[in-house]
């Protein structure tokens, strides 16, 4: 069974209903590690070695984060800059990540329609993820389709419940080796 590392990156989790519910729906499993970056590194001083060891121990890396300004929160960018070192993650001898899966779990305030060619933002959500895709590819990782929870501003309690169930199922599939 593959081991999943969930990197939660949310600077204001206490204000995000959607993310809290998603977290609550993560199945209980020995093979899942939840790692809350803003909780771990409030001063932004990332322990690179510890992070690398953590990744080495898992096959699926799942970034759960909100979409801020068409990108990730600042600590996640810092994490990428610091942890994915030359010679470890890429470059000569940098093969520690090869074959691992990269998946982003993204919540957006705007709806699916807003993130479309004809919508308000003019591009698909996945178009904005191009830098992440290239990063994963450079490290020899499989960049998988992101898991999106969109339109969180409008979602009702019931909608959120549905999304949570979907997330729970998604993770169980990953544990079962099923990738979409």
């Amino acid at each position: 069974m593959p081991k999943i590392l969930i990197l939660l990156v949310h600077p204001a989790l206490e204000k995000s209903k959607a993310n809290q519910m998603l977290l609550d729906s993560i199945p209980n499993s020995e093979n899942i590690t939840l790692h809350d970056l803003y909780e771990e590194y409030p001063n932004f001083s990332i322990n690179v070695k510890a992070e690398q060891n953590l990744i080495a121990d898992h096959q699926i890396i799942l970034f759960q984060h909100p979409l801020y300004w068409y990108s990730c929160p600042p600590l996640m960018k810092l994490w990428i800059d610091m942890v994915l070192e030359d010679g470890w993650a890429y470059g000569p001898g940098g093969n520690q990540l090869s074959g691992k899966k990269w998946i982003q779990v993204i919540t957006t305030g705007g709806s699916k329609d807003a993130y479309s060619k004809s919508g308000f933002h003019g591009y698909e959500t996945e178009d904005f993820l191009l830098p992440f895709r290239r990063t994963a590819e450079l490290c020899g990782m499989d960049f998988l389709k992101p898991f999106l929870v969109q339109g969180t501003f409008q979602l009702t309690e019931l909608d959120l419940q549905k999304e949570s169930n979907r997330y729970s199922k998604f993770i169980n599939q990953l544990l079962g080796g099923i990738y979409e």
Partner: protein
Amino acid sequence: MNELSFFIQALIYLTSAIIIVPIANRLGLGSVLGYLIAGIVIGPFVFGFVGTEGKDMLHFAEFGVVMMLFAIGLELELDLLWRLKFWLLGLGGLQIILTTIITAAFSFGFGFQWKPALALGLILSLSSTAIVLQTLKEKGLMKSVSGQAAFSVLLFQDMAVIPILAIFPMLSDSEVTTSSHGHSLIEHLPGYVKTLVVLSVVIGIILVGKYLLSPFFRLLAKSGNREIFTGASLLLVIAISVLMGSVGVSAALGTFLGGVVLASSEFRHELESNIEPFKGLLLGLFFLSVGASMDLPVVMESPSKILGIVFGIIFTKALVLFLLGLVFRLPLDQNLYFSLALSQVGEFSFVLFGYSEGLGLFQQETIVILVACVAVSMALTPVLLLLYEKTIFGFLESKIPKKQTEQNIHKQENPVIICGFGRFGNMLGRFLRSNAIGITILDFDADRVEMLGRFGFKVYFGDATRLELLESAGLEHAKVLVAALDNPEKQAELIRNVSQHYPKIKIVARAGDREGAYDLKEMGVQYIYRETRETAVLMGRDVLRLLGTRSYTAEKAKNLFLKHDDETFHELFDLRRDRVQYMSLAKQRNAELERLMLVDLGQEEELGRDPWSEMER
């Protein structure tokens, strides 16, 4: 000399120094030349304020040289001496040998017998430690390549005086006369016993210095009586001089040794600053009496002869030094400076001439002329250096790449001085040390100093409110002074002293509470730290965390609080006299802070939204 005439003498010496030295300094001549000129002016041949007792005064004032060597010794740790060994032995040794051979050959050519010629060569090969070191110090050149080279040579010369004194009797044909100078206790003993006695005295000084003096000073320090400590410092120097003198070794060398032994002690800076005023005055007196004892009529009688000899000596010595400088690869500009600086004949020559007079090595007239030559050469040194600096040095300095100057220079001055090494200074010291920042620590608690010394901290005992102590701890070269004394009055005194005399240095001060911080701000301190503030707020942050607040949020709350507290501090500072307004503003600001915090913690929504809450919920 009766009491009144003693005071009159003091009056004359001090007045002349006070008038002429500042003028000489203003003219850029340096204080050494100032003292020499002042000496000539009050001497028997210009105004005649002081009589021919100048020579006696000279003997007394030689104690200034002794103290200077003690102070130099204090600044020298053994590893520095070890690093200099190459220059010390190579440069210093060769300088003496070559100069002696050349000057002896010249003297032989001028009709001296070979033995007196050799003696003269040895005497003239020595340079003036007092003049050169004082000049180098005043110009801040002690750490330059030329400074270190000059220092090595001088040190070697000072040590060479001992064997020279031993050789002189052998050069004398007349066996009978024992010198007026050599009344040492061990004179009548056979040669090997003498050597043994000298050796055991030297070893004794090293052992006592290493194992007994620190506990002794610690005991004195605990009494908290500063005068006693100063007295003990003086006693130490005098005792070593007497001891060394009584076994026929130069007192200067003995105290130098004593200084080196004490250089690694925690009392180093305190000793240095205790000796400093005496040393300065006595050195001044020394130069004054050199000036006063200069036999002007002799110079005036045959000026061309004297000037000829003086320039001959200066030229020969400078040439030898310059050639050696080339061999030892000193950069050109530094080499020229070094050669000129050491080109005079030193103060030990007065001693040696007197000694050789007793031995009947030279005729009386010869000695009078040569002593005058020595004095003139000493007086000329600052002038020569000044001329060199004003002309060639500036020109060369711009042309020569600086790459070599950094080598061999050991930076002893630390950028940070910490005054007070209690729980607060201690933490700061550990932080800075772990960041490879050099720190010099001063503390007035003898037990603590000893204890921290065992932990590998370089801590010096001393009262940091004394400017001389701070200066000998390297205040001049420090960038930051940390004021962390426990006693608020001492703390204030320290800050006032430093900011008044060294306005450029940055003062970082610790305050106990808000009131203490106001006092510091009132004194103009820019960087104030309340010792318990950060820790208390850090603790607050962790309490928030324990109560379930996310750590990043708690961290933000901590930062917000500290920032708000900073702003409030400066606002309230202006109102601290008006209790009513003060309280009202303080209350208002507290209420503001509470509201801000609640908003940030997400417990109050209507006010000032977090930018991130706009993006996604």
